[in-house]
């Protein structure tokens, strides 16, 4: 029995040891401390729970470049990650006061409802249904639906989808929209964007319907594919906040507005997105003279 206890104890010990091994791999960039205090003087104060912890807990994607991914130095990187780093600067004057948690698409809501993270900045498309369970900040990035097709495709716009097969991810607004509005269109739904791309490349699907940001990346790197010209289902990304946490929402919205006013999203974009994509992406971000709002009706029930 002693041996058995030894086995159990040692494996448990190994588990604990492994758990503490490593630590947080936050990037340490020693930039000049921007005088942010003055700009924030009249803005809502940092929520108490974050103030006490002296740290943000923020959920991001880890496999979705250019929004959230793991960089070559094993660091978190991407557009969403940079916004989180700015939140750290706003709150604590340093960019590294944030603990990142990787989330997958279906894990985003649970991460908030359990209070595991303060914020979810992870390509989180606003929709009315989600808004009943969690709160959203104002939109910070305008995702739009696009069709990716092979160069020789007969599909020129969403009007040509009859009898065709569309690939998209399961549970997405595109999944709902096609089911609702395109009755004679076949759907291949996949668990990940990568699998949807593979379905198109294999020829199982005639077109791929998804957020412009992601399909644009394919169109840029693969010369066999292009985007059709039409835009549909505009769906701004918001920052997820636990339902009812009004001080948090006030803080986040005010800082996003500050970033908009000072045109801070554009440099983030330039630093995180491949040069060829800066132009098209810049129409989707908040800028001093550029804004967008959420749809208050469920867009997937509105048929073209």
């Amino acid at each position, binding site marked *: *029995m002693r041996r058995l206890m030894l*086995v159990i104890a040692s494996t*448990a010990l190994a*588990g604990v040891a492994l758990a503490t091994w490593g630590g947080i*791999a936050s990037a340490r960039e020693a930039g000049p401390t921007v005088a942010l205090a003055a700009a924030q003087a009249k803005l809502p104060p940092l929520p108490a729970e974050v103030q006490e912890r002296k740290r943000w807990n923020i959920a991001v994607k880890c*496999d979705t*470049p250019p929004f959230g991914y*793991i960089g*070559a130095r094993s660091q978190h990187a991407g557009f969403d990650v940079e916004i989180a780093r700015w939140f750290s600067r706003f709150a604590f004057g340093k960019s590294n006061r944030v603990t990142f948690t990787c989330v997958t698409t279906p894990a985003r809501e649970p991460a908030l409802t359990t209070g595991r993270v303060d914020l979810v900045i992870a390509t989180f498309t606003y929709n009315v249904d989600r808004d009943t369970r969690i709160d959203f900040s104002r939109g910070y990035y305008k995702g739009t639906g696009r069709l990716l097709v092979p160069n020789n495709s007969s599909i020129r716009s969403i009007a040509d989808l009859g009898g065709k097969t569309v690939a998209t991810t399961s549970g997405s607004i595109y999944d709902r929209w096609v089911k609702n509005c395109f009755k004679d269109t076949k759907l291949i739904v996949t668990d990940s964007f990568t699998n949807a791309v593979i379905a198109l490349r294999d020829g199982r699907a005639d077109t791929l319907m998804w957020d412009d940001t992601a399909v644009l990346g394919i169109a840029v790197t693969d010369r066999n594919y292009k985007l059709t010209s039409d835009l549909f289902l505009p769906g701004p990304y918001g920052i997820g906040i636990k339902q009812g946490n009004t001080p948090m929402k006030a803080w986040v919205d005010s800082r996003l507005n500050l970033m908009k006013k000072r045109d801070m999203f554009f440099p983030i974009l330039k630093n995180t997105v*491949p040069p060829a994509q800066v132009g098209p992406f810049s129409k989707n971000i908040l800028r001093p003279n550029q804004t967008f709002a959420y749809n208050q009706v469920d867009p997937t029930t509105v048929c073209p």
Partner: protein
Amino acid sequence: MSFLPDWAEPVLRYMLEVGLRGTLQIAAISLAGSLLIGVPLGTLLTIKFMPSRALIRLYIEVWRGLPVLVTLFLVFFLLPSLNPRLEFDALISASIALTLWGSAQVAEATRGAVQSIPKEQHEAASALGFGWIGRHVFVILPQALRRLLPPLVSLLVNIIQTSTIAQVIGAPELLESAERQVERLAAPPPIGIGEIKAFPIYATVMVIFFCISFPLTRLAAYLERRLA
């Protein structure tokens, strides 16, 4: 590591530092959990008391019968919808799912091992004044452990391999770390290199798992032979 292409070094480092660490973490927690739950359940299963036996049987048959992936979905998606407090992060959810499955295996193996101990050992222990618990803890289980060791090593191999299902819910284990790097490399520069490197990266994942599993399966086979 000059023989490796430029893109490979950061990928490998991330896979070992984050991925392998997560895999070993899940495996260690699951093995400990499987033993803590499985050994007592298996021992209790040898008592000829119908209700307790039926309950333990049901536990074993359910968690052995379900695909571990489905068990993982039950833990990760179903439990929180039953009660928000039953919500765990990806790594813990994977460990719980593997523990449910592993403890069912351990319970079944323990039952067999305990029953293989001759009746005389029970009688001798009783004669020395041991109660049921003392008899099992100090006399029977230490002997049963010898028989239990080969299946436990096999179980460890199985747990390490099956821990890859945690990738499905995004827990930081070896396969997930590899997938993240494949996704990054596929993005155009400066993010990645604009090329899909799935073949060498997933082949590397296979090699790493092989290097861990092969010695352990050899060990299990050796222990089994020594017992025979």
